[in-house]
């Protein structure tokens, strides 16, 4: 089985973000770009499936990011992915979901897969719509928010979270899934993994390799970002020391009353 995991390289989610209102972009100074920590869950799912399936199952990591971020992908290889493909092209800059998923789908068709695990849960401006759009362009079934997965012959048995509970579903291969964080904590890269990752391949792709029949990037997008502003400042409010429960409760109650919240 050939498993492909799409990952994103994002500004460190644990850093406080600021927006530059003139460029409408994130201020990158002092914010490290990392392998999206939530994509490590998708990769963990892939590695677990590989371990269970054994045989000739492989895990390939795919990212669309500037070439300068290539080495950031090594972490995924250190965790245990076999190889990686990096789609880089200035022409992709500013692509919206419509354009991104279109370009990605062509790259993924070129790579080929039996199981596609789409990562991408992040806070850097994502829409949550990319997996669905990819599935449409790839004409492949999609099962999202998977917390348990078992391969049975040519199909998958999956447990997925829903808005109000969970479901078990059966899906044929090839298929695309997204994972929930409840799938399990991602493993740490071992020292051996880190050393081994240095020798693994990160194959480059550019837009020219994809044979796209429409434009991507800002002008090849269906949405346009008009403005990005910081939210109204939320200053530090009152701080009250409460010697006992009654004092604390009264402070809150009075505050709620003043704001007509009780």
């Amino acid at each position, binding site marked *: 089985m050939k498993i492909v995991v799409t990952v994103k390289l994002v500004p460190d989610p644990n850093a406080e973000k600021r927006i530059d209102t003139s460029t409408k972009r994130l201020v990158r100074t002092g914010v490290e770009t990392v392998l999206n920590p939530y994509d490590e869950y998708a990769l963990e799912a892939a590695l677990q499936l590989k371990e269970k399936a054994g045989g000739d199952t492989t895990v390939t990591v795919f990212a669309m990011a500037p070439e300068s971020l290539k080495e950031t992908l090594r972490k995924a290889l250190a965790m245990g992915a076999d190889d990686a493909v990096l789609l880089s092209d200035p022409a992709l800059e500013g692509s919206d979901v419509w354009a991104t998923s279109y370009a990605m789908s062509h790259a993924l068709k070129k790579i080929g897969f039996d199981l596609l695990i789409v990562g991408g849960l992040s806070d850097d401006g994502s829409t949550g719509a990319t*997996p669905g759009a990819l599935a449409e362009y790839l004409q492949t079934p999609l099962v999202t928010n998977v917390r348990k997965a078992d391969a049975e012959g040519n199909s998958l048995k999956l447990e997925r979270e829903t808005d109000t509970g969970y479901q078990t579903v059966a*899906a044929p291969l090839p298929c695309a899934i997204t994972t929930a964080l409840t799938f399990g904590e991602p493993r740490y890269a071992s020292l051996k993994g880190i050393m081994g990752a240095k020798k693994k391949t990160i194959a480059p792709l550019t837009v020219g390799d994809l044979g796209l029949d429409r434009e991507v990037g800002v002008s090849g997008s269906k949405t346009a970002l008009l403005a990005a502003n910081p939210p109204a400042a939320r200053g530090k409010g009152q701080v009250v020391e409460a010697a006992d429960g009654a004092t604390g409760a009264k402070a809150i109650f009075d505050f709620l009353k003043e704001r007509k919240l009780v």
Partner: protein
Amino acid sequence: MKNVLVYVQHKGGVTPKVTFEMATEARKLADQLGGKAHAVVVGKGSSQLAEQLKSYPLDTIHVNDDADVDTFLLDPVVDYVEAAARAAGPSLVLVANTLTGKDVAGRLVGRLNAGVCADATDFKIDGGKIEAIMPKMGGAAITTCALKDGDYGIATIRPNAFSAQAGGSGASVQAIEKPSGKTYTVRIENDVEEGTGELALEEAPAVVAGGRGLGGPEPFDTLLKPLAKELGGAVGASRAAADAGWVPYSLQIGQTGKTVSPNLYIAVGISGAIQHKVGMRSSGTIIAINKDGAAPIAEFSDLTVVGDAFAIVPELTKLIAASKS
């Protein structure tokens, strides 16, 4: 793009509140764009739900009780929404920003060749052009995003951001034909409801959330639940509490959990790490109860009470209960 189509997410006819918020907003947008407001409801219980939706200001409700919608994962839904969008004509499709809604929106991007504005909290119509206002990067930026010219556009709608208002002269309910020539392969074998079918946390007007400072699972029931109940709200949690297994992940608020914007947010024993902050910072009023006055949460709370939550919360619950009687 002058019409508006609402995809109605539901289970057996039970739909979250955001549906009515979208139906109300659809009317306003359609009036400004000079088009009609449509909704599409499919799956078991749809006819009954359509009757309920008639009290909202829509023009046409497209309905089919097709059981395939409940048997196969999402593919039939996408086919029906596409059919309804084609029937409605060039339109803006509104979808709730829920797990299901995000999936539907993504599929429609490819299906309708449309751009998507995600997690919209407001709209502006400027000379017939649709602009959505959306908090991004965990609320670090408020962005304005325009849908470029084209037949279709999609917006996912943040629950609790728009108001729901019944009214209108009664929509016409129309049967929508089952899309033909489709085979569905992803079968739902078991479907378990853990809640009431409502999005309790995202839609609650008040949220009382607990964190590491609560020390275990019990206080969520004994301390937070009674307070949430008095406030007519819901209980939430920080990632630390969910990771410790004290509450299910479905209650987790933050970057990897849910985003909420209630009128009132009370954080109990939560330090306020960025992970948590991004999921709740757009709340109306934020109150923190923490034993550490230097915790980051104090920096963005309207009121921070430094003290023992185990003593304060029961007293507060009593005060609120007494004020009602």
